[in-house]
């Protein structure tokens, strides 16, 4: 049950302390929902994407977009239909399809969604899970609550990993002298058994995880010690200060108030 979200890479994001990075991510995520200009939101997304690219490489950095591509397409197709204000840009016959305000709102919506996705993804990519746990605890979360959160972080990629293995297994079973391309319907139908098997696999792992946690001493009365210690280069206060300053500067540059 241990699939980490951590991806080894390079750059300043790996050097930042998990606590200050968490503060920075939280503040920027909140800021995304404040009155920030459209340009500001895209600058934020662009900046985070470039950081991810530099840290982990383009192939890795593009992965979140591929994962959420379906949602982005749905947003692009349907959210403009609900916006009727502004100058009409596209008509089918007499029917108004697209307005200037709908385009602006869609752009803001997509930029917000991408920014939050990349901020959170970059945090878990560049912070070892044990450090994430320690950061949560430093902010006052109890050990058990922090453990539950970090296990949850791991459980999702675990299912994804199992899904890939099961998909491989099914790909070998279904390729019976079948050299042509499968129809979209067939491919969609093939996903259902894979998902079922992945879910069964994941559910079966739950009692074993609980078994192992208790066998390894979770529940004992002693105060837990810690193998890892968080160390902030240049001092924690300085890093926390920088984590507050970045969103503040960003706010003053791009606020629409």
């Amino acid at each position, binding site marked *: 049950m241990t699939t980490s979200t951590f991806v080894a890479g390079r750059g300043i994001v790996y050097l930042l302390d998990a606590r200050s990075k968490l503060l920075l991510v939280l503040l920027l995520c909140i800021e995304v929902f404040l009155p920030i200009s459209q340009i500001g939101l895209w600058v934020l997304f662009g900046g985070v994407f470039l950081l991810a690219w530099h840290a982990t490489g383009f192939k890795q950095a593009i992965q979140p977009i591929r994962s959420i591509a379906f949602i982005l397409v749905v947003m692009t197709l349907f959210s403009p239909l609900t916006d009727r204000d502004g100058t009409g840009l596209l008509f089918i016959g007499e029917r108004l399809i697209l307005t200037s305000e709908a385009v602006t709102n869609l752009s803001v919506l997509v930029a917000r969604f991408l920014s939050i996705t990349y901020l959170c993804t970059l945090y878990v990519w560049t912070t070892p899970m*044990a450090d994430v746990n320690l950061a949560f605890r430093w902010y006052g979360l109890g050990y058990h609550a922090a453990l539950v959160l970090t296990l949850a972080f791991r459980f999702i990629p675990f299912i994804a990993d199992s899904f890939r293995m099961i998909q491989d297994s099914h790909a070998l079973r279904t*390729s*019976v002298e079948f050299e042509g391309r499968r129809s979209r319907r067939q491919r969609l139908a093939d996903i259902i058994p894979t998902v079922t098997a992945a879910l069964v696999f994941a559910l079966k792992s739950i009692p074993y995880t609980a078994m192992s*946690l208790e066998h390894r001493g979770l529940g004992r009365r002693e*105060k837990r010690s810690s193998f890892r210690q968080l160390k902030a280069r240049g001092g924690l206060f300085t890093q926390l200060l920088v984590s507050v300053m970045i969103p503040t500067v960003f706010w003053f540059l791009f606020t629409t108030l």
Partner: protein
Amino acid sequence: MFEISGLSFTYRAYGTAAEHAPVLCNLDLTVHEGQSILILGAPDSGKSTLARIMCALVPRFVEGDLEGSITFQGERIDSRGPWELTDRCTLVAQNPQEQLLMTTCADEVAFPLESLGVRRERLVSSVHSALHRWELDRMMEVNPQELSGGERKRLLLAVTDAIGAPVWVMDEPFDDLDEFWRAHLLSEIEKKEGTVIVFASRYLEEFRGSFDAYYLLDQGVLTAGDEEAIVLAFDRVSDVQFSVKSTLEHVPEHDSHTLVAQNLSIVHPRRSVSSTEPFTLRTPDFRIASGEVVALVGPNGSGKSTLSRVLCGLDPSATGSISFDTAPCDRRMLRSRVGYLFQNPDFGIFLPTVREELGWSLRHVPALAEEQREQLIEKTARLFHLSCEDNPTTMSYGARKQLQAAVYYILNRPFYIVDELDSGVTYAAAFEIVSLLRSRGAGIVLITHDSAFARNIAERTYTIDNGVVKERRLNV
């Protein structure tokens, strides 16, 4: 130390045929302090259940009815939580995946020590030295998910080593380990100043004479005896003795095929650590023909599964080519010609009955009429000792492996790669599965750490040595 008296255990809803049949019946066992005991039992004989009961994990996490009493150091074990035994008794599970919790090897070893509140200086040195002793120090920051099966088992042993509990309960600890690490583990068991209880079904010849007491667990009953008598009795119940190689039936004439991989180079980095030297495997020349049984052996983490994934078209190679009957073969073509039986059968099983599971594989074979399809399913189920209406998720591990093999048998692939087939099933069952897959002319690549099994079943062997796959002729 352990006092077990009249212990019986029955799983609730364990399979369909064996429902309500007890896994353990009226067991009595006394383990003294400092004793090392070996309990032999065929796969699915209840070894893991007994090991978990001894560590207070069953029936706490698995529904079942426990009768009788079990005391550990004078205390009834059912009145204790598993966490109370952390520093006194450590379990090494047969399947390492069940016990791994953390996202780096170092954190995995550290977790129980943190629970015990070990002071940081000692904790850090214990983690480093345990990883060093099991040669995992270079993998400190690697995600256990990225390790090979054998490396994961070593990680569990490093955890056990670091905790330093006076009692070790080890469920098939030699499984997944290569010869070197099996010898290493045996020497650790012999050196151990404490109590060791080992449950095993394989590699008997390697650890004969190393234990103080011997038991046989068969049909839920535990029998004590001297080593010779127990090993002989175990041979009888689990068909451990091999038939000589000549008993692999002669394969009747079928279409003859060859699979050849030349100048393959496989490279993949570990995701969790930056490394200037990613894992690399070179295969200058690998070939197999129809009807052949070829063993692929190598140390833990040498790349056996990596090569297998490329040979069956799941992963690409960096350079080189694979040809089928001299014609170049792309990944899609390979997937329909080379079956890969994963070590874990659960990756491929998902339907509610054996009949549906076998039938699902045939749905892309349009030439088969409904009646023929049913006949083929019934015949295959009979050959693999399966009942068509059984539910795969509640079947035993060995039966699930049989089902996995049956699924591929029905597909009639020209070649099969079989990963650690002998783990979790008897030698006789493994031998039978290989014979059945080969009976229709298929060539078999067998991945195993068991040299005795490989010697008795394979005609040729490929070894992986320092990142290079080479052929080694067997002198039988």
